């Protein structure tokens, strides 16, 4: 994705944040834009009734924190809405709310900081508070976790009224060596180094004297103890900065440590970047586990893709007044197995003039590009490999790998048809990533996050609480996304890269056997990705009507039911793509490109702005939003469906057709 898109995305996120209310009277659009350009995101102070003795909190940053980091609270200018806080005042900063480890259960908890109000130069008025996380509270942050709650400023003694509070969302990370080393390198934030190491050290005449060691930290794993004196780091005199810098570069360092200040001899200790040194067989087991799980995923996904091929062929058969495959397995449903076996046992032909290495690798790239998307697809609340907070960004990124594979295959085949197919494909997929990304931004604007799970949680189970019917812009965005996804997946009416009547078979013309099978599997698996993604983004994902996420999580049966809901929605979308393929002709390349650049991209931008405007206009009016959603659901969902159904019935009547939905005969 281009830099501009990333920028626009972050702007959109900012804008989403500015839509929270700060004061009863609403800022004008100009103010919003101004706030945008300044990069100042506002945090509301909704809970306050009386004028508090401190200025309002305007911003809390950074929003991703590591242990040992400093939290900075920007304070507003006081005046009508706020009191004054003189610079230099000691305050306690307390965060209370829930900490949710990613992929884990949320725990109630808090973090407390001690901070100091700091004023701008020469001013007695405090404009910001710098706060550092207290050491003892850190244990809650074992891995990557998300904090949602409020930040409160209280007087330093911990007693008395809350001076100010504001809602805040933070991403908490464990200390990373890289940032510790950065700090060490700059010589500025040594706290990070020691914080990562888990030991506090005191420079002394003999070296670095260890004063405390946190259990479980790298220091403890290296068997450092309080009272030890580090004399040398890799044979060089010990300084605070060197330890982290060395670790960052080499992974392990050897310390020369005296057990105590008075001991005569030194003991060598090894500190490893990854904590305790892992034995070799540990690596083997880890690799085996990784290999095994990925094999399971790949096989499951491939089998799913295989079933889609049979499904597609059966649907195509019904649509074309034929039967479709019905010989292998129960009513032909094992046809994919026969196809796969056949493809695997076929000769793997490589054209004599092909660019051999590229020709051989390209199917794997396509295969990986599609299969890696399954990392973030949320099949149910718990059935997700990784709930990345940049989930959809990741999705857009890895699916780009497909283009590389396709264009490589087309080029390496050294066939003119393959080449044209590859070029068409590259032009098409890269172009259509833009409208897809724009449609995604509409959702990002509404949800304020890119995490698939979070987006699903913010939607509801009933159709009118899905994002697709949230506002007209979202409804348009859904269609833009769906069209763009069809184009990215090379599906009719955008199947130009493999248009059999024009390009024989496009980029995969020269492929045979297993490699062809890899292309084919990727294509059909991608169908599933399209369906699942649209379901998660627009159609409420695994949400069950009238049920909040918490009870679903508590019950295995509800989990299964929510998986079924997700599966059903995604399958319906897959059916639509299959159905389109067997109905529509295909575009010509220039028509396809003009559709993307002249219609979808501008329209996507309009949708983005429209959705922002909607969010701004309707925020705080839950009732109006609900009515609008229901109106949209009826006007944009029910009415078209009823019209469509009446058309179908009419056609069936005049042609004496018979509806045949049974795919098991």
């Amino acid at each position, binding site marked *: 994705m281009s830099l501009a898109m990333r920028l626009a995305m972050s702007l959109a996120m900012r804008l989403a944040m500015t839509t929270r209310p700060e004061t009863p009277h609403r800022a004008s659009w100009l103010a919003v834009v101004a706030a945008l350009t300044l990069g100042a995101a506002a945090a509301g102070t909704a809970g306050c009734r009386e004028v508090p003795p401190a200025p309002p909190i305007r911003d809390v940053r950074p929003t991703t924190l590591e242990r040992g980091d400093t939290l900075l609270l920007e304070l507003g200018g006081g005046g009508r809405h706020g009191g004054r806080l003189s610079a230099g005042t000691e305050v306690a900063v307390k965060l209370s709310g829930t900490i949710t480890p990613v992929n884990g259960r949320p725990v109630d908890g808090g973090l407390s900081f001690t901070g100091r109000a700091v004023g701008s130069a020469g001013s007695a008025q405090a404009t910001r508070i710098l706060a550092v996380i207290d050491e003892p509270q850190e244990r809650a942050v074992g891995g990557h976790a998300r904090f949602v709650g409020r930040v409160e400023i209280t007087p330093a003694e911990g007693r008395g009224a809350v001076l100010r509070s504001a809602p805040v969302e933070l991403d908490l990370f464990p200390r990373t060596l890289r940032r510790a080393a950065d700090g060490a390198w700059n010589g500025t934030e040594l706290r990070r180094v020691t914080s990562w190491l888990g030991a506090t050290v005191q420079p002394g005449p003999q070296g670095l004297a260890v004063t405390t060691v946190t259990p479980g930290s790298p220091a403890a794993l290296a068997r450092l103890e309080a009272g030890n004196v580090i004399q040398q780091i890799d044979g060089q005199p010990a300084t605070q900065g060197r330890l982290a810098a060395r670790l960052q570069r080499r992974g392990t360092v050897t310390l020369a440590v005296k057990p105590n200040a008075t001991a005569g001899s030194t003991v060598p200790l090894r500190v490893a970047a990854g904590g305790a040194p892992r034995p070799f067989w540990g690596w083997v087991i880890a690799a085996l586990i990784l290999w095994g799980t990925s094999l399971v995923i790949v096989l499951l996904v491939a089998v799913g893709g295989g079933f889609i091929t049979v499904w597609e062929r059966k649907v*195509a058969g019904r*649509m*074309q*007044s*034929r039967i479709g495959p019905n010989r292998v397995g129960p009513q032909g449903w094992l046809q994919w197995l026969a196809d796969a076996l056949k493809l695997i046992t076929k000769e793997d032909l490589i054209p004599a003039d092909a660019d051999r290495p590229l020709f051989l690798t390209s199917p794997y790239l396509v295969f990986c590009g599609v299969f890696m998307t399954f990392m973030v697809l949320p099949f149910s609340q718990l059935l997700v490999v990784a709930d990345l907070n940049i989930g959809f960004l990741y999705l857009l990124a890895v699916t780009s790998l497909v283009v590389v594979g396709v264009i490589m295959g087309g080029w390496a085949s050294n066939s*003119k*048809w393959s080449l*044209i197919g590859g*070029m*068409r494909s590259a032009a098409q997929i890269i172009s259509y990533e833009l409208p897809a990304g724009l449609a995604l931004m509409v959702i990002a604007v509404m949800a304020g996050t890119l995490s698939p799970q979070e987006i699903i949680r913010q939607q509801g189970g009933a159709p009118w609480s899905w994002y697709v019917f949230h506002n007209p812009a979202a409804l348009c965005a859904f269609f833009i996304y769906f069209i763009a996804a069809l184009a990215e997946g090379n599906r*009719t*009416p955008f*199947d*130009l890269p493999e*248009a*059999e*009547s*024009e*390009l*024989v078979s496009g980029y995969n013309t020269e492929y045979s056997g297993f490699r062809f099978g890899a292309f084919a599997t990727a294509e059909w698996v991608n169908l599933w990705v399209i369906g699942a993604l649209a379901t998660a983004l627009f159609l409420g994902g695994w949400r069950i009507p009238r049920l909040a996420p918490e009870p679903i999580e508590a019950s295995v049966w509800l989990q299964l039911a929510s998986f079924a809901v997700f599966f059903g929605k995604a399958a319906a979308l897959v059916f639509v793509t299959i159905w389109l393929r*067997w*109905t*529509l*002709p*295909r*575009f*010509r*390349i*220039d*028509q396809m490109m003009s559709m993307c650049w002249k219609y979808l991209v501008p329209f996507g931008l309009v949708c983005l702005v429209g959705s922002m405007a909607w969010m701004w206009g309707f925020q705080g009016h839950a009732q109006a939003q609900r009515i609008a959603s229901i109106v949209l659901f009826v006007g944009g969902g029910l009415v078209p469906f009823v019209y469509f159904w009446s058309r179908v019935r009419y*056609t069936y009547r*005049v*042609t*004496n057709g018979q509806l045949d939905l049974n795919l098991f005969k």
Partner: protein
Amino acid sequence: MSEIVLATPAGEEMILNMGPHHPSTHGVLRFIVRTDGEVMSEAKPDVGYLHRAIEKICEGMTYEAFMPYTDRIDYVAAMPANHCWALTVEKLVGAPVPPRAEYLRIITDELNRISSHHIMLGAHAMDLGAVTVFPWLLREREMVNDLLEELCGARLTYNYHRIGGVAVDMPAGWPDKVMRFVDRHGPILDELDRLISGNEIFVKRNRGVAVVTAAEARSYGMVGPNARASGVDYDLRRDAPYGLYAKVLAGLEQKGTPFEVAVGRDALGVTGDCWNRFYVRVEECRQSLKLVREALAQIQETPAGEFWTPPKKIRPKGEALGRVEAARGWMSCYVVATGEKTPYRAHFRTGSFTSMAVVRAKSRGLMVADLVALIASLDVIAPEIDR
């Protein structure tokens, strides 16, 4: 035929060898395409892959014995080719044809025209990516094939017409079956319109592509649906009726449902473009249904069993040109006879032959995908070109 391309020219252009092993040339055509990326500068047709020297074969056999070979001139619509040969020889010999046979010829010609157009319409849509149209129309074509099989025993190469009549009379119950098909087929054609003719993408792909003006169509000798799509309002069945077409047309006129020659117009497409070439054929199917219906009504008045009066001895002397409106347009057969048992020289002039000649001129500046649409819309059939 068999132009061998050895080297790619220097510069920006690439030479693409499209066919005969290419899905949309159906194994019997070849185009040498000069292209710069997607845009072609020229597509040169290379024909002759199906050349069997039928005209030479004709010189070696009797007039009656040549009839099965005419099936192979256009195996998708063999009835009109049969008819053309029978008509020409009858003209030479002066043989009378019983009215029942004339009606049967009209019915079979029109049924065969419908089934031939099914192939064209389906293949055109399929070449543009809409695969479903093809099997749908094949399903309908199967019904026509079943009807013709019941009549003459063959599904593709009928060998049904005879000099002086037809081979067999229609079996009992056959007219009812034909009527059932005719009744069924009208709504199916409407459904086809809803499915593909009016489809936004399909119209976009065909509208204004490879426009052949009426003057060009006449100069290139394009005939039949292709010429009519360009606005040449001429149909042998109406303007130079042979057999009993005049009577059938008059019957239709009386019933208030006159036979209308389908001509291309500026509607969804532009006159002479690929869309009109497609739609003219849909319209022709409708008109053929009318003709079949009327001919079936009129054939009831003719005595059963009088379907063939074979001429005593076929040893004509002289020359004649016979014309019929075949599925791919005006097919004419020129026969030179010298009083022998065998023809001295026979020459067939077919619709596909002249349609194919237009491809080279019309392909300039088109895109590769348009070439596919152009070839499909011209409905060229290789055996008709190569003979």
